[in-house]
């Protein structure tokens, strides 16, 4: 006679339960694969008119993968997998050495490690994007500073992006630098970050996430010195200032990452002289002796004591700074899963070729 504990144990480690849970997980994923996830409620009301949107919102189909039923189901699956894995593993160890088959064990263990990593990622991953112009800096999670030294953007002849790359310098670091590694982090070092080639630092990684251009205005002061202003920036004068407010409406243009509308090679400060830009007007706020006026001007015109000499395209590099404590576990899980699945089937398929 089996005790009820044994019965529960047997049920929890059964492959039948695994099949049922796998099918249920697939059904949840299908719901999440059909209905766009994580959009605002209005989106569903307009996209799925009538009772459909009510069902979607009521049952959390707009965020299936973080909904309670899905998380409960996943937990049940992990429990099933864990019990089953350890049961099989102990069974395998009680066999004579030559008869053991550890492929499925390695694979199942890898999945457990992977799911542990997934939970860690879901709970602790942080990601922020910083937008840097050449020469600008930002703080990093470990207290170090990152400075954008240069950006390069290349295009194919058809206008599609070929590469984005940022050259950065990192200096400073964890305040109590004692170990040799921390010392190394202290020194100023130059790195190149490209799409698909992130910069790995202790505890976080930096990714080239996007790239775009913004127009700056170039002004000449009475002495003939050039200075450039990005939107919202001002240049002070003896009796007031000039502030670059915006490009005149309908004339604004920025290049979005991936499909830039403005062609830029390297981010060298070269004043653009494209004919269509010569006519583009910019809006300035001018203060002289306490009097403020809004001035619209095209290149060549005067704004107070300055001459508005033209525009330049400033490239802005979007860098994502990500901490993900789960990923090392995920990566370890991946290695085990691949090892396990190949060991399992290479053994099984030996002799398949006639």
């Amino acid at each position: 006679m089996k005790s009820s504990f044994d019965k529960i144990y047997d049920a929890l480690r059964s492959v039948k339960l695994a099949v049922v849970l796998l099918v249920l997980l697939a059904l949840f994923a299908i719901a999440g694969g059909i209905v766009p996830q994580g959009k605002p409620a209005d989106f569903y009301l307009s996209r799925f008119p009538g009772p459909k949107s009510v069902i979607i919102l009521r049952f959390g189909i707009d965020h299936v993968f973080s909904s309670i039923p899905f998380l409960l189901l996943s937990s049940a699956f992990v429990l099933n997998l864990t019990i089953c894995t350890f049961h099989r593993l102990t069974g395998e160890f009680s066999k004579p050495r030559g008869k053991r088959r550890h492929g499925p064990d390695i694979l199942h263990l890898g999945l457990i490690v992977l799911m542990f990593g997934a939970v860690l990622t879901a709970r602790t991953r942080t990601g922020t994007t910083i937008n840097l112009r050449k020469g600008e800096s930002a703080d990093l999670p470990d207290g170090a500073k990152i400075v954008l030294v240069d950006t390069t953007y290349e295009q194919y002849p058809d206008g599609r992006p070929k590469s984005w790359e940022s050259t950065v310098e990192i200096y400073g670091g964890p305040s109590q630098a004692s170990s040799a590694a921390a010392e190394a982090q202290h020194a100023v070092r130059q790195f190149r970050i490209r799409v698909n080639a992130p910069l790995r630092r202790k505890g976080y990684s930096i990714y080239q996430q996007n790239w775009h251009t913004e127009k700056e205005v170039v002004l000449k002061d009475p002495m003939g010195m050039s200075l450039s202003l990005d939107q919202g920036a001002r240049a002070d004068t003896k009796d007031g200032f000039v502030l670059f407010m915006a490009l005149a409406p309908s004339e604004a243009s920025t290049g979005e990452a991936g499909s830039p509308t403005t062609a830029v090679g390297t981010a060298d400060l070269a004043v653009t002289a494209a004919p269509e830009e010569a006519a583009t007007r910019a809006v300035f706020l001018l203060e002289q002796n306490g009097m403020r006026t809004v001035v619209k001007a095209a290149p060549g015109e005067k704004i107070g004591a300055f001459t508005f000499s033209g525009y330049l395209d400033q490239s802005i590099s979007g860098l994502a700074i990500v901490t993900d404590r789960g990923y090392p576990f995920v990566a370890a899980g991946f290695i085990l899963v691949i090892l396990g699945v190949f060991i399992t089937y290479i053994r099984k398929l030996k002799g398949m070729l006639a």
Partner: protein
Amino acid sequence: MIATVAFGLFILSLIIQIIYLFKKAGGQDGISHWLSLAAGILLLVEIVRRSIAIRFVALTGMFESLIFLACALAFLIFALRHFKSTKGNRVIPFGATIIALTFLALASSPLAPADVKPPVPALQSGWLVLHVSFTFIGEVFFAVGFVSAILQLATKSEEKRQNYDRATYTSIAVGYPIFTAGALVFGAIWAEKAWGVWWSWDPKETWALITWLTYTAYLHFRLVRKSTSRLVPALVIVGFAIAMFTFLGVNFLLKGLHSYA
């Protein structure tokens, strides 16, 4: 041009196979698998030619993906004559040839523009090449499993059913590890390197996961169900339908991060 010749070779191969299918007695023809091999080599030449033109492995667009699938399937059709579980079978290579032809027909449709384009930054990655190639190689084995599972359901003879079951299982047993490595592991590694997120539940990822869960369910179901169960091969048929939806349907019907590939 090269793809058109390969298409012609597949058509010829199909005609020969049809003639032999109608011959009651006799074994397999001696030509069709060679035609398939020739088509595979031609398609490989096309992939290499395009790769040289863009200085990257030409696997980043819909057209190239379809050509790669047809190419891999062409080689597999040739190899089917040498596998224990499919040797001497006339119907499985026939079904697989129809699928290869379908891939090529789609490649020549307006859905898959054939212009040669070098990849955008996100696609310039060795992991992407591994991700796509392993996924597709896994999927051509799933294609053979799909044909065999249909035959397994259709046949009335118990002996044939068992043979088909073995052929189905063997195809999945080869395809599954390759697909697991390609679609899930290499895909996630690539996503992490490119975007800093190894999993983001975008539609393509979600559907790849559904495909994988379906085949995982098949492998476990087969462990516990009696060999006469019709549900077991049904999962393989559904699995391939989902794999093809992941590849084609998600691109055309749903939009996400992957909509460019």
